C-alpha cells in the first residue's frame, strides 16, 4: 500500500510540474492534483523561481466573447474537444496536449497566445458546467465559443463577420490583455510594433 502511494505521488508531482511549466495558477494545481498546498507552493517556487501569484482567478465569461479572445478560445476548445472525443485522453491530459498545440498554432500565426493556461482551464470548466457552448457558424461551418442558451439560428462567427473596429485596431490588439505564459520576450526576432507593445504593457503588469 505504501509503495503504491509513493508511485502515485510521483505521478502527481510529475503532472504538477507539467502544469506549472505551462503556467497553471495555484488554484488550478490544487483542483487537479492531490498534492498539499504547501508542497505545491514549494514545487512552484522551485520551477518558476518565484512565489505563486496571489489573488483570485479570472472568472469572467464575457472575456471569452471579445473578438481576439473568442478566436483564440475557439481555437483551443476545438483542439480540446478533438482530444477528448477522438484522442481518448483524460480531461487533464487533453488539457495539456491541446494547450501545447494551441501555443504552437498561436506562435505560427505570429502572435502571442492570448489565452493563458489557467484561462484555458476555466474555459473547459465553463463548458463542463454548461455555461458556454459551441455555436456553428452559418457561413464557414466552424464551431465557436458562445454563451449557452443564446439563439443558434443565423449565427455568424467573429471571423466571418469581424466587429467593425477589429481590423482597424489590429496593431493595438497586439497589446495582449493577459500576461503570456511563454517568454516570447526572450526570443531573438522582435518586431518594432511588438517591442512597442511590450513597453506599453510593462508598467501595468
Amino acid at each position, binding site marked *: 500500500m505504501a509503495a503504491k502511494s509513493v508511485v502515485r505521488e510521483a505521478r502527481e508531482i510529475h503532472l504538477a510540474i507539467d502544469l506549472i511549466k505551462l503556467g497553471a495558477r495555484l488554484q488550478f494545481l490544487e483542483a487537479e492534483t492531490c498534492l498539499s498546498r504547501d508542497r505545491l507552493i514549494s514545487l512552484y517556487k522551485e520551477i518558476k523561481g518565484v512565489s505563486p501569484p496571489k489573488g483570485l482567478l479570472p472568472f469572467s465569461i464575457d472575456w471569452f466573447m471579445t473578438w481576439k479572445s473568442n*478566436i*483564440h478560445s*475557439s*481555437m483551443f476548445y*476545438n*483542439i480540446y*474537444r*478533438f*482530444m477528448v472525443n*477522438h*484522442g*481518448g*485522453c483524460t480531461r487533464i*491530459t*487533453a488539457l495539456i*496536449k491541446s494547450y*501545447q*498545440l494551441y501555443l504552437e*498554432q498561436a506562435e*505560427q*500565426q*505570429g*502572435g502571442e497566445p492570448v489565452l493563458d493556461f489557467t484561462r484555458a482551464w476555466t474555459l473547459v470548466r465553463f463548458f463542463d458546467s454548461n455555461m458556454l457552448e459551441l455555436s456553428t457558424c452559418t*457561413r*464557414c*461551418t*466552424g*464551431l*465557436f465559443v458562445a454563451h449557452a442558451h443564446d439563439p443558434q439560428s443565423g449565427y455568424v462567427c467573429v*471571423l*466571418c463577420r*469581424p466587429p467593425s473596429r477589429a*481590423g482597424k485596431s*489590429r496593431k493595438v490588439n497586439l497589446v495582449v490583455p493577459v500576461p503570456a505564459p511563454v517568454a516570447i520576450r526572450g526570443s531573438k526576432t522582435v518586431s518594432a510594433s511588438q517591442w512597442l507593445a511590450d513597453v506599453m504593457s510593462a508598467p501595468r503588469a
Partner: protein
Amino acid sequence: MSETGKSNEIGDLNLTYLLLAQRLVKEDAATAMFRLGMSRELADLLGNLSLSQIVKLASSSLFLCRFRFDDHPILSVLTDDMNSLSLQQAHAAILLSGQRVEMFQ
C-alpha cells in the same frame, strides 16, 4: 514532364507523408491524430506498418493523402484576400479541428 516523372514525384510525396505520419503517431498518438485528422484505428494501423509495407503502399501514381478542405464555402472563406494572414491561419485551424475525422467506413 513525362508521365513517369509525375508518378515518381507523387510516389515520393506519398512516401514522405507516410513516414512522417508514422513518426508522429509513434511520438504521440493523440496529437498526431489531431494533426492528421484521423481516427484512432487508422492512426494505430499507420503506426504499425512495416517499412516494406510503407514503401509498397507509397509507390503509386495516385495520392494517398486527401485534400482536407473539400467544401466550397470553407475554401472561399479561407482564400478571401481581405483577411490578414494570421486571421486566415486561425480560421483554418478552427475549421480543420472541428472537421470530422478520417476513419474506416
